[in-house]
């Protein structure tokens, strides 16, 4: 009886000891596992977790850099930063049970929409990131909030900077404007936190957009230690911001502003260039919006007014307006003829038209007997039709294109349309048909398929004037490359220049636009571009049916320094609408006083300066459309 029991007790004891060892071993193994895991986390993964811990602890509030200035060729500022006042809310500093939004709405005259937006932003915000209440508030509003700050926990009234364009609309299409980044731009920059700082603006159009890289600068950072709930614990050493670079343009601010003012209420574009370097001195598209209102966030009424205007102030006509060149093409055509061996002295009798195929092309007048110079001088269509038919259109059109029409230029302008300079080759490719006599006829007077932009209108006279293949430039700092000579006989160029000089100073189409300066003559060429068919043509008809007026010029005629191209939409004859503007702008380049003296009576006649007229127009529009006033 005892035997088996004892054996079993002994056996049980052995089992116990064995299992105790097993248990002890398992416990030791778990201990080793824990120490191993601890070592893995603390040694092998230490760097990774240290980084994560730091990114938990430290938050970077970007401090936006000040945007770089844009200055003109002489250093005059054309885009600067003006101090402005803004009001923000720091959500984490708000006190529970104290709603500051209604008070702010009262002090800052916020609309219901604004209040909704602020409440939405507050709900989505992270503690330390400010929520914008209002920007560009007046000093009085700023002061009203500032004195009540002790009673407005979480509210912050600060002085910041906002973009300011002293010349307003005159530089609108050249510079563009700035604005808060939209969702797409924010995504495109990989959610750069800088872009969502209240009040931070990026370039939206024009040079502000294309030069963004230089102008933006490097943000600084306010490094702060925050808790998991977004409460600020302490401020760490800040990283200073670096302002954007100043960008110098080739533009002459004085001329730019003068040209914009001189164009009055007309719709058009003007480009002025230095013929030796290609520096663009003026880049004007009028009428234009005020980039200052755009940068502040444009009001609905003003936007409506701008978008409804038939003079399309929102279109950058210099870069994107395309027009038939009209007769401004003739000097280049003539140069093409010369290159093909046409005798410039060959006489041609203009009887007022030419029969081409089964169609009779009528000229404006019967010019009688003309040679090349006087054909340019009097803009004789028949001469160019006739000579065009006797020469190779491929070679002639090639010359015109070589001088700039239909060419695209390498400029920091976000979107450029460069039109068309047709040729037999191009026609074949594009429309699969052969070049006909009437194509030659249309092209010879800058109609038909010919479409050019206002920049080309300046490049063409500049190349003819300098005899060099200059390229337009906008940035002073861009590298200056040696400019090759035109592959044209200088004698030929001389003939063309003589013809163009006669246009203004002989008995040509623009004799009314001689420069009022002693010893300085301007050479030019008028152009009138048909908008509708000849039969419907009427210079006095409805504005939108009138022809475009064009003028290209360079001066001094004997020693060219400047070239200007100008188009006035629906201006009628080039001689009457565009040439006087070019004359005055050219005068400005040589004698500012004289040019400004000419402008004063004109502006008086128009009803004040550009700024005054714009303000009046907006006021009139506002009172005419009460529905838009919320």
């Amino acid at each position: 009886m005892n035997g088996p029991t004892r054996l079993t007790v002994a056996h049980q004891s052995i089992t116990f000891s064995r299992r105790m060892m097993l248990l002890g071993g398992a416990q030791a193994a778990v201990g080793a596992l824990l120490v191993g895991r601890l070592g893995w986390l603390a040694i092998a993964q230490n760097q990774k977790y240290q980084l994560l811990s730091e990114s938990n602890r430290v938050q970077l509030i970007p401090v936006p850099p000040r945007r770089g200035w844009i200055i003109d060729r002489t250093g005059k500022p054309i885009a600067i930063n003006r101090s402005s006042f803004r009001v923000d809310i720091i959500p984490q500093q708000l006190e529970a049970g104290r709603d500051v939004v209604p008070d702010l709405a009262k002090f800052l005259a916020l609309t219901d929409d604004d209040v909704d937006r602020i409440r939405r932003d507050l709900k989505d915000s992270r503690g330390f990131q400010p929520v914008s209440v209002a920007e560009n508030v007046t000093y009085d509003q700023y002061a009203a909030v500032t004195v009540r700050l002790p009673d407005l926990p979480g509210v912050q009234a600060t002085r910041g900077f906002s973009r300011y364009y002293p010349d307003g609309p005159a530089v609108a299409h050249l510079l563009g404007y700035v604005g808060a980044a939209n969702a797409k731009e924010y995504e495109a920059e990989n959610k750069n936190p800088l872009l969502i700082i209240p009040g931070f603006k990026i370039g939206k159009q024009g040079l502000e957009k294309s030069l963004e890289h230089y102008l933006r600068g490097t943000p600084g950072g306010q490094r702060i230690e925050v808790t998991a709930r977004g409460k600020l614990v302490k401020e760490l050493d800040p990283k200073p911001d670096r302002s954007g670079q100043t960008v110098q343009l080739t533009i002459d601010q004085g001329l730019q502003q003068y040209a914009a003012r001189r164009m009055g209420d007309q719709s058009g574009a003007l480009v002025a260039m230095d013929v030796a370097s290609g520096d663009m001195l003026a880049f004007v598209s009028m009428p234009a919006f005020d980039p200052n209102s755009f940068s502040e966030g444009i009001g609905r009424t003003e936007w409506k007014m701008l978008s409804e205007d038939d003079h399309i102030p929102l279109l950058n006509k210099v870069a994107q307006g395309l027009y038939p060149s009209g007769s401004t093409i003739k000097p280049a055509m003539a140069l093409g003829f010369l290159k093909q061996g046409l005798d410039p002295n060959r006489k041609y009798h203009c009887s007022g038209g030419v029969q081409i195929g089964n169609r009779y092309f009528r000229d404006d007048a019967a010019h009688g007997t003309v040679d090349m110079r006087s054909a340019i001088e009097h803009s004789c269509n028949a001469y160019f039709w006739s000579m065009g038919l006797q020469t190779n259109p491929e070679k002639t059109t090639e010359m015109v294109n070589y001088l700039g029409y239909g060419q695209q230029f390498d400029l920091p302008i976000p979107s450029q349309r460069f039109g068309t300079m047709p040729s037999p080759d191009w026609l074949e490719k594009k429309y699969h048909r052969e070049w006909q006599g009437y194509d030659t006829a249309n092209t010879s007077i800058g109609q038909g398929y010919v479409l050019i932009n206002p920049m080309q209108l300046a490049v063409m006279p500049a190349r003819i004037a300098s005899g060099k293949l200059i390229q337009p430039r906008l940035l002073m700092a861009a590298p200056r490359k040696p400019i090759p000579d035109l592959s044209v006989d200088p004698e030929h160029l001389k003939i063309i220049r003589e013809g163009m000089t006669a246009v203004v100073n002989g008995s040509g189409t623009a004799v009314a636009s001689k420069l009022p300066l002693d010893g300085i003559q301007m050479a030019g060429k008028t152009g009138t571009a048909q908008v509708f068919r000849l039969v419907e043509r009427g210079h006095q008809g409805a504005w939108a049916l009138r022809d475009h007026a064009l003028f290209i010029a360079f001066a001094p005629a004997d020693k060219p320094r400047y070239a200007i191209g100008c188009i006035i939409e629906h201006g009628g004859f080039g001689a009457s609408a565009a040439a006087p503007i070019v004359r005055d702008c050219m005068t400005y380049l040589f004698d500012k006083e004289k040019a400004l003296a000419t402008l004063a009576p004109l502006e008086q006649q128009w009803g004040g300066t550009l700024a005054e007229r714009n303000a009046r127009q907006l006021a009139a529009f506002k009172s005419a459309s009460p529905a838009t006033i919320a």
Partner: protein
Amino acid sequence: VITSAIIPKPLARLPWRLIFLVAAIACFGLLVLYSAAGGSVRPWALKQAIVFLVFLGIAIGMSWVKESTIKAFTFPLYGATLVMLIGVEGLGFVSKGAQRWLDLGPIRLQPSEFMKPAIVLTLARFYELVPAGEIRKWRAIWPALLLLGVPAALILVQPDLGTCIMVVLCGVTVMFLAGLPWWIFAGPAAAVAVAAPIAYNLLHGYQRKRIDVFLNPESDPLGAGYHISQSKIAIGSGGIWGKGFLQGSQSHLDYLPEGHTDFVFATMAEEWGLVGGVLLIAAFGLVIRWGMRVSANARTRFSQLAAAGLSATIFFYVSINLMMVMGLAPVVGVPLPLVSFGGSAVMTVMLCLGLLMALERQQRTVSTLA
């Protein structure tokens, strides 16, 4: 134990090394709680110190209890705890939403805590009563399964998965050491090991999420992963030497949730680094080894099984908590004894240690062998 003339005999016979070890762990824990409160004894360190001292006193007092007394109280204790568990669950002595507390005026009792030592003692007592020859019989198995299963189920439905797992593991440890056949343990373990991952993988994402939430009802379902990742960041960023006392950014900036309770080890490791962690693990290891030695040296079957089971309780506490904090186990809400803020874990561990000290004293007194 060397008796010196100066120290009174009863004091000299206390296991001072163990007491110093436990006190050292507790003091280290108080330092961590002091830091977790941003360098303040309030609200945690001071309270914890008082609770610890009270229970240390109780544990030392318990060391004079005789094994026979423990045995006599085992089944009544088990019965009372079971009644309290049923009371919590069924009769609704419920304090605001949390079902696990029994509110008795100044003391709030958590009966499931008592169940950890109670189940160990009960099973030890049960297997002492089972004759050696019967151990592989069904009769030796089903009562134990019942004794263990009923309280485990009651705790599970509270719901308190962490405590439930602990109670089951403690009970199973005693059953294992009692010499039950291998298949009892190997069979279910293998079945669970094979079935669980397959079942889990067959589920859709949202169902898995529900399981995760079920396993861990206390925490914010979205926050479960956040807890572990922040805890790993705290431990990993501490490196070898730690960021220094009061320098832990994870805990002080509130990125580490529950940095003074379940995740106190992460708070500690961030400031004391690998060194602090290894020292703490080693200290616990020594405490557990002391308990296992008590078991190995025990002269009765009850004290063998009870001592081993009580040591295992401490072991499971520490290892489940550390695995959880270091991302090796799901977050089940098991605190780190003596370090985590909260009286329950201190109470349980000190009760275990008190019982162990009592059993250890029996080994040194010849009288009980008679």
